[in-house]
């Protein structure tokens, strides 16, 4: 029986996309329909309820802007980490992933600060449907940030041992996705009424 590792190269019809990258794209495809469904629900309601604007003015757009900058910066650091891993610079890749994790944590801290102030001001998830959607969408997004941070930390450990360097790219793809979701959520939840 041939061992798998040696046989793989010539064993199969030549794949067009690296297997790990493709797996990640399928994950994203599943995630896109989950967030897509949630956002479309929100848009349909919002369309029929212009009065939600009165609730939406109470969102803290300053923190929203800060968090947008934080997340975009973290996308930059993770793509630089990918570049470093691509060139075999494990130390630099590791450092940049560390920055990404710090920025992700900063995002969560700002979000927690924002939540606690909103709840203190009486804007709880059951205040009205706008706030239900606000907490649902941003909460689901925050959970994805947490999952992304765990994934990045796991890959970072491997990079420290110079193992599975290609995975930096895969968590990077995921992290960009989480970033892009925020790019949709931020204007839809924070800015839409204020134009």
């Amino acid at each position, binding site marked *: 029986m041939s*061992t798998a590792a040696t046989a793989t190269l010539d064993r199969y019809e030549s794949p067009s996309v690296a297997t790990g990258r493709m797996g990640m794209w399928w994950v994203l495809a599943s995630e896109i329909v989950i967030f897509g469904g949630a956002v479309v629900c929100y848009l349909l309601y919002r369309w029929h309820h212009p009065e939600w604007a009165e609730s939406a003015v109470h969102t803290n757009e300053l923190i929203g802007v800060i968090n947008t900058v934080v997340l975009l910066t973290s996308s930059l650091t993770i793509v630089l980490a990918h570049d470093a891993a691509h060139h075999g610079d494990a130390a630099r890749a590791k450092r940049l992933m560390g920055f990404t994790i710090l920025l992700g944590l900063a995002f969560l801290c700002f979000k927690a600060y924002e939540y606690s102030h909103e709840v203190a001001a009486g804007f709880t998830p059951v205040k009205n449907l706008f706030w239900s959607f606000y907490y649902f969408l941003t909460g689901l997004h925050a959970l994805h940030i947490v999952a992304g941070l765990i994934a990045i930390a796991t890959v970072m450990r491997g990079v420290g041992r110079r193992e599975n360097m290609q995975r930096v790219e895969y968590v990077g793809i995921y992290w960009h996705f989480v970033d892009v979701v925020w790019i949709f959520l931020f204007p839809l939840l924070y800015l839409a009424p204020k134009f």
Partner: protein
Amino acid sequence: MYHMQTGHAVGFWRKYVFSTDHKVIGLQYMITGLFMAILGGFLAYAFRMQLAYPNEAVPLFGQVGPDVYNAMVTMHGTIMLFWVAQPILVSGFGNYLVPLQLGAEDMCFPRLNMLSYWTFLVSTVLLVASFFVPGGAMGGGWTGYPPLNARMDYTGVDWGGTLWILALALEFAAALMSGINVLSTTLNMRTKGMTLFRMPLFVWMQNAANLIFMFSVGPLIAGALMLLADRTLQTGFFIPAQGGDPLLWQHLFWFFGHPEVYVLLLPALGILTEVIPTFARKPIFGYRMIVYSVVAAGVLSFIVWAHHQFVSGINPQLAVAFSLTTIMISVPFAVIIFSFLATLWRASIEYKVAMLFALGMLAEFLIGGVTGIHLASTSTDIYLHDTYFVVAHFHYTMFPVTFFGMFAGIYYWFPKMFGRKMNEGLGWIHFLVTFVAFNVIFIPLFAFGLAGHQRRIYDPSLWENLVPYQHLHVIATAATIVLLLGQIPFVFNFFWSMKKGRKAERNPWKSNTLEWDTPSPPGHGNFEAAPVVYRWPYEYSAPDREEDYRPQWLAPEAKP
């Protein structure tokens, strides 16, 4: 990169329980599914007894109260679709066969695959546990419609409904993980020579099913989280008094729920595409046409969902559009069925049990498909909606798909899975009893529906207009018991043949696809040497050859 195959012994636990081998995971899915089928069948027995003999104690169960009745029909539907059909047809057969038929050593993400099964098992435990929590299991219908299910006090079902939502969400996650594996493995791990159009149609169907699942389930996962919030946090996503809209749930549910029908149908048709040519000893008719039909059906399946909502107050013009798309989707399936008939045309058919179940599925599914046209058309649907006609219709689609399809697959691939053949005589008994009893249960239900018998009523004797038809309930219930007893020969045959059945060689049915090039059962890593594929998988009865089949892996003879 993939496995250690250096021959060192793997312990019992790693080999059979915490396994990353696609074959073991496939069997785990199937066996879990079969156990859940027993539970689902028992529920059917208990509530059918209640319908035939209202308010009498049911033997082996006891008194069925209205709440218990609601919980039983809800859980019967949930279990049969998501814990029997889905794990067996999609994850079970898909896991077992896709890598084998592609000539791969395993799935490309074996650990993700193991995580998929264990997530599924946790969901199973949660679902079964929901029977034992205060308030009992979910009783708000398998579609989980709000506002009924958006508050615990509306149904009196407390934790049952919440566990039901959690279990479904986990089951969906498990199916997604399994699907990612099937899709990636098909794209990246086809053995040399296995071009896309040389893949067995079973693999095509599995991929189509997993793609449809992946792109339809997302909105319902979002919706399930919203429903969960409504139940536990008292938000109002689906509660009109708080500005929510119950119709939204119907859209989210059926945007997934209808494509899900095809998610279950396609793998069963995939089983037929392997079984029918093998026992007809003829090449499948219209290979490419079947592939294109599957693609067309997959696309159409996303724009038919609102036919479940014709009486929910949707715009009548919209209803006409959905009527049309629904009737249109029968076209690609008609193409596939006609391809099967053309394959069978003038063939010298071997009536093995696998073939009987395959033919049985074709015949029964046809009735399901044709009665679907009545429900697709708004004018008739408004009358038939929520009657037993609907119940009969979807049992004529889903029962043949789930059970006839699954049995065809099990009798056909059992020799590969366990190295022994199942007993044909017992199989014939199993088939005949199942076939006859199934029709005796559900033909009366069509009559019921036309007579105006609503679904989901606990005690039909309370409706005067239904009393004259009560004897039909008795007939259907008697047939249900026969159907359930008819599975005993199968269960016996299954376990007995595993140990005592006639030994099967590698390729007992003289078939062409790659799984028959492996030892029965295949070892870890599947193939002794990497197979190379030279032709499509349906080369039977070629006129220029002595043998009536030519497997994919057989190198062409050198010209003399």
